């Protein structure tokens, strides 16, 4: 099963990369941009999707400083599992 893990700086933690991008965009003529954050995308094929959360907690993200969300684009939408999961922590 293909999965994607989106990792971003945790709310409230200063993200200087996001700030730098946010400042660069107006300089190029793009206005109306706010709250820019730069994170990481990890794509992976995984046999047991139930392990994804543990993978995130243990290695892919550092929950102390990062939020993550797990996306499974191939997954058939289930009533209780529609779309990407909400950010953890």
């Amino acid at each position, binding site marked *: 099963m293909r999965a994607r893990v989106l990792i971003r700086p945790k709310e409230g*933690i*200063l993200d*200087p*990369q996001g700030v*730098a991008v946010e400042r660069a965009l107006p300089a190029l003529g793009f206005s109306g941009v706010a709250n820019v954050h730069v994170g*990481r995308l990890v794509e992976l094929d995984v046999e047991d999707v139930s392990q994804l959360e543990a993978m995130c907690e243990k*290695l*892919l993200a*550092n929950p*102390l*400083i990062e939020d993550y969300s797990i996306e499974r684009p191939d997954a058939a939408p289930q009533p209780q599992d529609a779309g990407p999961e909400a950010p953890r922590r």
Partner: protein
Amino acid sequence: MRFGVVRFPGSCDEVDALEACRRVGDAEILWHADPDLGGVDAVVVPGGFSYGDYLRVGAIARFSPVMESVIAFAREGGPVLGICNGFQVLCEAGLLPGALLPNVGLRFLCRQLDIEVVDTDTAFTRACAPAEALSIPAKHQAGRYHAPGDVRVAFRYAHDGNPNGSSNDIAGVANEAGNVVGLMPHPEHAVDELTGSTDGLALLRSAVGLARA
């Protein structure tokens, strides 16, 4: 007194750390893939870019075979010092609280600076005087310490000279027991008058004589 200095793929300060340790005792390299610590009395996790800093600084090194042994050694009370990337690894390993984030300025910084000794009761500050300023170089891109709450501060950047946006000017911390210490500046590069300061030796001298718990 025998120090073990860990070498990961991508370490670059392990030889300086080894030579610095040899000024106060014996020292040997510990290879990352070998879980045997060889009966050393203290462990130094040195600076560099372990595993290329891939994913997140220190994130992959933390799971190397040698680190499993270092974690057990630290939990038994063994003295462990993490310098720069080593500090990042010890935080990822959960031996020290907090995490290291990219510098506020996003630049790699490299400069000689003063750090103030805040806590003289740790395994690596026992030989320091309270509030003593140590002249030690810092060189890093991810040295912004994020404190998860109250932490045991070992060192602060002195004279309002916080170079990276670290919480509360924290340059280094200790675990609750005081046997594990990590800091971003490099004491192993301040052990010879040739490079301007020998203040870094105080950290290593502090560990000499500490028996394994």
